[in-house]
């Protein structure tokens, strides 16, 4: 009933290649997270804007990002934009797709986080002579980030795992791409993907631990 013989040695020999891929994966995840946080903060500010256009941008972005499959979002970045004459390579298309998705989720998280910071904090800051931007960046944002730190870490892990979708737009340099190449060459599907899974797990763990360390350093109050 079961006559598959495991061949771990050749699979493990490919480890350096796979680690190289893991590095690319991490790179995409970090980039999409950094840009996603920046865009998410801007969107969350738009969410309480009285300007209809700004609110519209926020609402549309969040609705689309959260209610359509991430896979389609990456497809749209690669094939959709390509149809419009904007040709992104698979690395960039994946980055754009995931960042779009990330920013949508993060915007909603941040919106909640901003509500957790009392209005009176802004008042106190403004009364000291800070302008609206300073009051927001110096007083409100740091407190918001503390409130949303754990959901933000979850989103980071989610972003790492989502990078594996790059394979659908032909990305072959990230962990999934490298693994897939090895797979089609050798058909040792189980071995390679098991190793890849372990590597994804380790990356996610390292990021979570790193985040905890940052939180411990940053939020001592």
């Amino acid at each position, binding site marked *: 009933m079961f006559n598959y013989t495991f061949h771990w040695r050749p699979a493990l020999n490919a480890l350096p290649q796979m680690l190289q891929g893991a590095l690319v994966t991490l790179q995409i995840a970090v980039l999409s997270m950094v840009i996603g946080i920046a865009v998410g903060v801007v969107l969350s500010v738009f969410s309480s804007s009285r300007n209809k256009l700004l609110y519209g941008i926020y609402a549309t972005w969040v609705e689309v990002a959260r209610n359509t499959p991430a896979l389609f979002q990456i497809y749209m970045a690669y094939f959709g934009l390509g149809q419009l004459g904007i040709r992104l390579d698979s690395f960039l298309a994946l980055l754009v797709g995931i960042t779009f998705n990330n920013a949508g989720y993060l915007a909603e998280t941040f919106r909640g986080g901003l509500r957790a910071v009392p209005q009176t904090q802004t008042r106190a800051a403004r009364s*000291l002579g800070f302008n609206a931007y300073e009051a927001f960046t110096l007083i409100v944002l740091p407190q918001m980030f503390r409130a949303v730190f754990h959901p933000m870490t979850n989103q980071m892990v989610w972003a790492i795992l989502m990078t594996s979708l790059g394979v659908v737009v032909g990305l072959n340099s990230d962990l999934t791409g490298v693994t897939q190449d090895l797979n089609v060459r050798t058909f040792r599907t189980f071995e390679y993907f098991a190793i890849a899974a372990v590597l994804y797990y380790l990356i996610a763990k390292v990021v979570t631990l790193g985040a905890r360390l940052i939180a411990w350093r940053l939020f001592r109050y």
Partner: protein
Amino acid sequence: MIEIENVEKSFGALKVLDGVSLTVNKGEVVSIIGGSGSGKSTLLMCINGLEPIQGGRILVDGTEVHARGTDLNRLRRKIGIVFQQWNAFPHLTVLENVTLAPRKVLKKSREEADAIARRQLEHVGLGDKFGSFPGKLSGGQQQRMAIARALAMAPEYMLFDEVTSALDPQLVGEVLDTMRLLAREGMTMILVTHEMGFAREVSDRVAFFKSGKIHEIGSPEQLFGNPQLPDTRAFLNSVLK
């Protein structure tokens, strides 16, 4: 000099200030007393432009607060305000709470801002708390920190909005001591307060607020000792018994 002329202010259909006029001269301490919801705190928020007004005008050293071209951020530098709920910045240490505005708003160097903050914090008796976070302080200590934070901007006017109302009774004294010191140093102050004894002691004038108006105003001796209007008498009877 703060000149409040016929100020009107509504929250929706609710009229909170209904033609308030009051002039506060340099070096003067004016207390505002009155029941809850009579518009006292709102008036303070209007003076530094945190709240818009619908009628009348407020002048601070001749600058009209609510005029279109007024640089409120600049104007607020000379008006310190301390709130009922102290509003410490929880993510900053006590020292950082006090140095942030001098550094970012007044563009002072870190050393200069530190020196100012240390002096102000020692002034209010928090010389040993520089590195603590506000969450580790008592309400009275946080409120004194808030006073130091406002003073670090070297304001010309200080507004106090029921600063002892949210404190445990045994912590009220230390905050009042700090304010007493300020009054003695000649700071121009407007305080909204429920501490009648304190108002009587430090004020040059006391104003009784009722239904969005200054109902009666006079020296502490006059207002507390010989109130002219029946509503003032009724209020004082109810709080002083």
